[in-house]
């Protein structure tokens, strides 16, 4: 018996030692917050300095399709490191992969110092107390470059302070096939959603695999969520009321709008059958292969066509998102840069942000991707790159840019509703699962209320 006890004690000590070693993080409680801060820096190993004492910054940026853009911004960040004797850990990550990484980073307290984010995430991170006030950096940048488009600062301004800096926007416009529209008897792109439906029906020819409306649904499809959102607003529907608190997802106006939107799939049959489960890339493919006559997309699609398919480029037209009875609304898919407050090198991180907005470099970086990326400065509208008929609609769309939460203010809760792609799910409930618009809207109402009541 004694032997067993001895052995068990021995094993337990070894096990506990291992556990203790595993959990022996040099963390400190922050008074009043109940959270722990890593010992230093926001670098992935939780240190602000490398073992040889050099300062260190970890930066997560969005990886986009255009490698030149990726290379330019990575080189710019590294250049900052060299000029300021800072060790740089920079990673370029596709947007759809960022949420799991942020999630892990929050849990493990291994967030980067600086990160790309959209304003929906910025709202969520602000609510969790994870972001640093960057109002002073914005002031510095505006002093040098002139004002940032005022509307873009709104969604990341909380309590009068700014928590993320607008870096670039992805304006969405209708890409249409001029040849297909002309063959169907239309000489101009749709200006309203009624015209959109009419043209989509006229250009649809299932026997040739052509569908007029290249719009889709999908559980992870943020492009589709945006298009559904602006269509809903344009048709007079909304999820959240003007007071930013009342949920009106099953109001008669919203139900009517959902009914209208679902008819494009069910009655008109002008969307490809696969559209009910598209991912973000699928509408691009549909347009590039001639499956769809019209798709709503950022300028990345036009840039790809211009680079790879001159014949298609010649028959591609660009128009603003159609307006509805309630007006014109454009998606506000925007990229922001923020600093996580776990960072122990916050001043250095702020210097890096200002460095990334040096106007000459910034313009050269944006110019690579005109019209995929929209600059955030007022003065950019007058730059020659944006005067072309194929690029102008993208920058003009910024006038109709509408933020999640409309007709109320953008709030982190509204951002959460968007991130869950609940509108896509609602449309799928009608189009795929056979629910009535009212039934689907009631479920949407319940889900959004649950988020707001948390």
């Amino acid at each position, binding site marked *: 018996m004694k032997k067993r006890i001895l052995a068990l004690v021995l094993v337990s000590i070894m096990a506990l030692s291992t*556990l203790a070693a595993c959990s022996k993080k040099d963390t400190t409680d922050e008074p009043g917050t*109940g959270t722990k801060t890593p010992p230093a820096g926001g670098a992935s190993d939780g240190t602000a300095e490398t073992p040889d004492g050099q300062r260190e910054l970890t930066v997560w940026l969005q990886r986009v399709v255009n490698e030149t853009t990726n290379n330019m911004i990575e080189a710019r960040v590294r250049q900052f490191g060299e000029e300021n004797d800072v060790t740089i850990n920079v990673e370029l990550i596709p947007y759809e992969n960022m949420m799991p990484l942020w999630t892990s980073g929050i849990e493990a307290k291994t967030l980067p110092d600086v990160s790309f984010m959209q304003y929906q995430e910025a709202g969520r991170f602000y609510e969790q107390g994870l972001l640093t006030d960057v109002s002073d950096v914005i002031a510095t940048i505006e002093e040098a470059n002139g004002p940032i488009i005022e509307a873009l600062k709104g969604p990341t301004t909380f309590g009068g302070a700014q928590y993320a800096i607008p870096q670039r926007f992805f304006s969405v416009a209708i890409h249409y096939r001029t040849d297909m529209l002309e063959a169907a008897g239309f000489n101009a792109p749709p200006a309203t959603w009624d015209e959109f439906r009419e043209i989509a029906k006229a250009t649809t020819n299932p026997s040739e695999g052509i569908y007029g409306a290249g719009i889709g649904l999908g559980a992870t499809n943020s492009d589709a969520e945006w298009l559904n959102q602006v269509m809903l607003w344009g048709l007079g529907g909304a999820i959240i009321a003007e007071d930013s608190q009342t949920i009106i997802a099953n109001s008669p106006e919203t139900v009517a709008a959902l009914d209208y939107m679902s008819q494009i799939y069910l009655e008109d049959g002008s969307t490809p059958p696969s559209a009910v489960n598209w991912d973000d890339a699928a509408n691009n493919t549909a347009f590039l292969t001639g499956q769809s006559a019209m798709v709503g997309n950022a300028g990345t699609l036009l840039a790809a066509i211009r680079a790879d398919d001159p014949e298609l480029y010649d028959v591609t037209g660009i128009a603003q998102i159609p307006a509805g009875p309630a007006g014109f609304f454009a998606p506000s898919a925007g990229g922001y840069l923020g600093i996580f407050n776990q960072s122990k090198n916050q001043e250095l991180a702020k210097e890096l942000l200002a460095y990334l907005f040096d106007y000459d470099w910034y313009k050269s970086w944006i110019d690579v991707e005109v019209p995929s990326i929209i600059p955030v400065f007022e003065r950019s509208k007058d730059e020659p790159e944006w005067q072309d008929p194929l690029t102008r609609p993208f920058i003009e769309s910024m006038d109709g840019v509408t933020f999640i939460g409309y007709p109320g203010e953008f709030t982190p809760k509204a951002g959460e509703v968007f991130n869950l792609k609940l509108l896509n799910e609602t449309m*799928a409930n009608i189009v795929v699962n056979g629910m009535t618009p009212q039934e689907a809207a009631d479920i949407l109402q319940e889900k959004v209320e649950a988020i707001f009541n948390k």
Partner: protein
Amino acid sequence: MRALSRERKKELLAYCLIAPVIIYLIVFMLFPFIWALWTSVTNRTIGGNADFVGIDNFVTLVRDRVFRQSVWNTIVYTLFAVLGKVVLGMIMALVLNAQIPLKNLSRVLLFIPWTIPTLVSALTWRWMYSDVGGFFNYILMSLNIVNAPVPWLYDPKLAMVSIIVANIWRGAPFIAISLLAGLQSIPEDYYEAAQIDGANAIIRFLHITIPSIKDVLILSTLITTIWTFNDFEIVWLLTGGGPGNATQILSTYGYTVGFMNLNLSKAISSSMIAMPFLLILVTIITNRFKKSEVD
């Protein structure tokens, strides 16, 4: 200090030798399990604090239509995929155990699906199922069998069938390799004696082959059931759980809730609900192994 007897030294050495395994089990199995169990009864979100909420998460899950659909989809997916893998795996094993030309090459080819990374095979299947330039639709339309692309991944019912087929393709080689090992251990004399007694191929299969490989068959089926039940990559990469949650299974549901919606406790609770079923399977497998050792 009294010197330790030889027996004591031996026992101490034995405990020291098993200590790494015990530590491993405590650190990497028991501790995470207890943590997960605790989290499932809290309202913990990613980056948030955890307050005890009892069985609220489980009640919420049971009331959640999508979760209930995920449970049903998981059962359908697992049942048909395992059935398909066992049948196909058995056929593969029998063919490869027979005297056929290019036997070794056939065996290598057979195992390719199992050796390719799931990511690659899932993306290849996605291309094959695509309605734009996809392999299956191209063949069917070229042969004038259909006049419009078949919505393999976009029709709710077809999507489930499509992901099951992909899973069967990927998982059948495991069953085949397991059964092939069992088949090769059956003495040829048995078949010769049965043949002399007039037993035809079906009788030989039912009365000699199946009883001889019964243990391997049961074990490999149980193991593949657990794997299929927990499958994530094929479903996520092919359909993302859509369209309209038609292929949403427990693993994709948990991922969406945990990593997309940041609701950690609900995601863990959804996994916990499946645990009793998996524990039963694991217990059966363990008992089978014990029985095999005794035999």
